[in-house]
C-alpha cells in the first residue's frame, strides 16, 4: 500500500504541484458554482480531508503552566529559542504573550476581508512582499516578547571577598550583559483586575464603562486561563504569507510545519500569524513553531503539553472536513464565521461522507478515529467548544470550551451581597461579561457563547438533581430543555468533562508515517524539513 502511494514520488520534494488552492478555487467556474449550490446530499462536490484537531476545556484549566514547561523542555530549550513558548498560558483579562498579541491594529496579523468580499493578508501579501522584504514593517521585535535571561551563578564562586554576600544577578541570554529585568513571559499571571495588564486586554472592546469598572473592582475581580498553542489552522495565514514556501500543511493530518531547509528568514510568517505562534529563532535565522509533537503522535502518544496537562483539560481527535468549501467559508461575514466553520466539518458517521472520504484516500483507521473523536462531540454534537478569534479568518482547529465564572457580587454596605440567590446563577450574571467571551470565542457574537455556557450550566443542574437531589427533577429538565440538551447528552458531556480516561481524551489516528519516511528519505534530512533537527549541526550561516 505504502509503496503504491509512493510510486509517483521521486526526489526530495513532497509538494504537490497540482494541489488545489483554496483561495483561488472560486476562480474556476465549475467548482465555484458547485460549491455555491452544493447540498450535503451530493458528496461528489466534496473533497474530504482529515485534520488532527483539539479542544481545550477552559473550565478545567488551573493555570499551572505544566504544559508550557513540558513543551519548553522538549522543544525550545535551545540557543535562539529561549524566548519561545510554543505553548503558553495567559491570564484573561490580560495582555498575553507577546504583549497585546490580539491587537491587530498593531500587529496586522491574519486576513482581512476586502469590500468586494475577497481576502488579503493584512501584513505582507503578494503585492506588498517586494517593498517589505528588506524590512517587514509589521514584524514584532524581541521587546514585544521579552529578552530571555539567566542568572550569573558563577559570581557566587568568583566574587571577591567583601562585606556582603555575593549575589547571582540577572544576565541576558543574548549578549551575556547584566540586565534590569522589566518584564517577562507571564508577567501578568493571575493579575486579573490589574490596571496595567487586565485593563489593556484588547477583548475589552465593546464593553461598557461600567462593565470595565466592575471587572477591576475588588468584589468582582475575576480571571481565567487561556492556554495557547498553534491552532494548526485550515486557512493558515503563516503558510499563505511565506515567500519561500517553507511553511506547509501536511495533507494527511493538517499539522502546519516550517521546513527548516527552505526558510530563508524573510520573517513574513511571524508577522502574518494573528495568534503570534510562529517565532523567529534569532540565532539560526529560521522561524520555528509548534509541531504538535508529530513524532509523538506518529507513535500513538499525545503531544507533550496534552500528555502532561494537570487539569486534563485537553482533548485531541480527528475531524473530517470539506476542503472544497474552505475559501467560501473563510470569506463569510464576521457573524457567520463560527457557523460557517462548523458547516465545513463533516459527520463521520454519514455513509456518503465515509464513501467520499475513502475515495479521497482517507484510511479506515482514520475514519474510525474520526467517529470516536472527542473533538467532534464538543464542537459538532454538543456545540460547546468554540474557535478563538475566528474573525482572523485562518479557521483555527483548536477549540475552547468557554469557562464558567463566579456570580456577580456587589458590596453596598459592609456585607458582600450576591446578585443571584440561585445555586447556579444565571449565566448573564457571570462576572466575566458575555461580550468579553464573545470577543474571544464568538467572533463578537454573544449567541454562540451563551449557548455553550447555558448547556454547561444545564449539565450542572442535571447532575445535581441526579446525585445530590436538592434540585427537583422537573427544574433540571426545564433547564436542559432551555439549553437544547437531553439527559443522555448531559450525561455524556459530564462524563467526557469530568471522568474521561486517557484513551477518551486522546483518540490519535493511525499515521504510519514512519514507514513512508524510512522508505523514501534519509531520516536526518527528513528531520530538518519537518521543523526540528538539523543536518550538520544547528549553526548560523557558514
Amino acid at each position, binding site marked *: 500500500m*505504502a509503496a503504491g502511494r509512493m510510486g509517483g514520488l521521486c526526489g526530495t520534494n513532497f509538494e504537490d504541484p497540482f494541489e488545489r488552492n483554496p483561495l483561488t478555487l472560486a476562480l474556476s467556474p465549475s467548482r465555484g458554482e458547485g460549491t455555491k449550490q452544493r447540498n450535503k446530499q451530493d458528496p461528489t462536490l466534496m473533497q474530504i480531508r482529515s485534520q488532527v484537531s483539539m479542544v481545550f476545556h477552559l473550565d478545567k484549566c488551573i493555570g499551572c503552566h505544566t504544559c508550557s514547561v513540558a513543551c519548553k523542555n522538549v522543544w525550545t530549550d535551545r540557543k535562539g529559542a529561549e524566548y519561545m513558548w510554543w505553548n503558553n498560558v495567559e491570564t484573561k483579562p490580560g495582555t498575553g504573550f507577546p504583549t497585546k498579541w490580539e491587537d491587530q491594529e498593531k500587529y496586522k496579523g491574519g486576513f482581512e476581508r476586502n469590500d468586494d468580499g475577497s481576502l488579503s493578508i493584512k501584513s505582507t501579501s503578494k503585492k506588498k512582499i517586494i517593498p517589505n522584504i528588506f524590512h517587514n514593517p509589521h514584524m514584532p521585535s524581541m521587546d514585544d516578547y521579552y529578552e530571555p535571561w539567566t542568572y550569573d551563578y558563577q559570581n557566587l564562586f568568583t566574587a571577591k571577598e567583601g562585606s556582603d554576600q555575593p549575589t547571582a544577578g540577572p544576565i541576558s541570554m543574548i549578549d551575556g550583559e547584566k540586565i534590569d529585568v522589566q518584564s517577562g513571559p507571564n508577567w501578568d499571571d493571575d493579575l486579573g483586575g490589574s490596571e496595567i495588564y487586565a485593563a489593556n486586554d484588547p477583548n475589552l472592546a465593546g464593553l461598557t464603562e461600567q462593565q470595565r469598572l466592575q471587572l477591576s473592582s475588588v468584589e468582582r475581580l475575576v480571571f481565567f486561563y487561556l492556554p495557547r498553542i498553534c491552532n494548526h489552522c485550515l486557512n493558515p495565514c503563516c503558510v499563505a504569507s511565506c515567500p519561500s514556501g517553507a511553511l506547509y500543511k501536511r495533507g494527511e493530518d493538517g499539522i502546519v510545519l516550517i521546513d527548516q531547509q527552505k526558510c530563508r*528568514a524573510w520573517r513574513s510568517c511571524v508577522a502574518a500569524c494573528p495568534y503570534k505562534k510562529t517565532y523567529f529563532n534569532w540565532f539560526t535565522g529560521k522561524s520555528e513553531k509548534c509541531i504538535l509533537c508529530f513524532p509523538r503522535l506518529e507513535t500513538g502518544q499525545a503531544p507533550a503539553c496534552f500528555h502532561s496537562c494537570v487539569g486534563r483539560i485537553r482533548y485531541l481527535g480527528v475531524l473530517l472536513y470539506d476542503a472544497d468549501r474552505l475559501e467560501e467559508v473563510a470569506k463569510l461575514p464576521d457573524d457567520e464565521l463560527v457557523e460557517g466553520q462548523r458547516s465545513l466539518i463533516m459527520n463521520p458517521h454519514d455513509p456518503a461522507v465515509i464513501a467520499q472520504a475513502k475515495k479521497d484516500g482517507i484510511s479506515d483507521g482514520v475514519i474510525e478515529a474520526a467517529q470516536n473523536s472527542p473533538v467532534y462531540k464538543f464542537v459538532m454534537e454538543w456545540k460547546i467548544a468554540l474557535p478563538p478569534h475566528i474573525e482572523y479568518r485562518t479557521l483555527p482547529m483548536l477549540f475552547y470550551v468557554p469557562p464558567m465564572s463566579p456570580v456577580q457580587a456587589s458590596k453596598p454596605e459592609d456585607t458582600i451581597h450576591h446578585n443571584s440567590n440561585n445555586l447556579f446563577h444565571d449565566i448573564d450574571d457571570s462576572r466575566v461579561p458575555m461580550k468579553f467571551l464573545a470577543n474571544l470565542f464568538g467572533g463578537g457574537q454573544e449567541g454562540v457563547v451563551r449557548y455553550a455556557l447555558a448547556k454547561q450550566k444545564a449539565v450542572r443542574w442535571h447532575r445535581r438533581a441526579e446525585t445530590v437531589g436538592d434540585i427537583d427533577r422537573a427544574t433540571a429538565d426545564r433547564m436542559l430543555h432551555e439549553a437544547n440538551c437531553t439527559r443522555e447528552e448531559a450525561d455524556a458531556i459530564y462524563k467526557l468533562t469530568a471522568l474521561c480516561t486517557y484513551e477518551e481524551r486522546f483518540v490519535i489516528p493511525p499515521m504510519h508515517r514512519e514507514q513512508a519516511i524510512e522508505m523514501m528519505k534519509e531520516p536526518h534530512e527528513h528531520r530538518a524539513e519537518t521543523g526540528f533537527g538539523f543536518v550538520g549541526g544547528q549553526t548560523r550561516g557558514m
Partner: protein
Amino acid sequence: MNARPMDQFLFIALPYVCLFTFLLMTIYRYRQQSFSYSSLSSQFLENKQHFWAVVPFHYGILAVTAGHLIAFLIPRSILAWNSHPLRLYILEISALVCGLLTLIGLISLIARRGTTTRIRKVTTVTDWILFAMLLIQTVSGVAIALFHPWGSSWFATNLSPYLWSIFKLNPDVSFVTAMPHLVKLHIVLAFLTIGFFPFTRLVHLLVIPNPYLWRKTQVVRWYGRKSE
C-alpha cells in the same frame, strides 16, 4: 599578449579562481548545507535602526548592480543612450545617487552592528570582513563616479569587452591595463567579492523568493498522490 605578470595575475588568474569558487561553492553549499542559506535577518533583535540601514542599502546596491549588469550585457544600447549629453547626465547622476544611497545604507548597517550589543552577538568575523570589502568597494565606486566621470560610457567601451573576453575564455587584458588605479582596485575587489560570496550570508541573494508571486496561496504536502 604581453601583459605584465602582475596584470595577468590580477585580471586573468584571479577572476577565474573567483568565478570558479563562486560556481562550485554556491552549488556545493546549496546541496550540502541548504539550511545555511538564510538572510540571517536581525530585524527581530533591533527593529528601529533596521529600517534606515537595510532599506537604503538594498535599494541602492540592487540598482547599482543592475546598472553594471546592463552595461555589461548591452553596451551598445548604453552608448546609444549616452549619445545625447542630457541623457548621459541623467544616467550618471542617477548612478551616483544610487551609489551614495548604498554608501549611506552600508555605513548605517555597520554602525548598527557595531553599536547594538544584541546585534554584535550575531555578527561573525565573516560579516565584518564582508562589510570591509563592501565598504571599500562602495567608496571606490562612488570615487570613480566623481573623479573619473562618464563611467557608463567607458565601461561600455572598455570593461564590457574585457568581461566578455573572460567569459568567452579568451581573456584580453589590454582593455584594463590602461585603467586608472582606482578602477583597477574596483575590478579586483569585485572579483574577490564574487569569490567570497559563497562563504557569506550574501547567498540569500540566490534564493530570492520569486516563485511566491505566482505560487498558489496555500501549500499542502502529501506523502503520496491520492488516487482520484
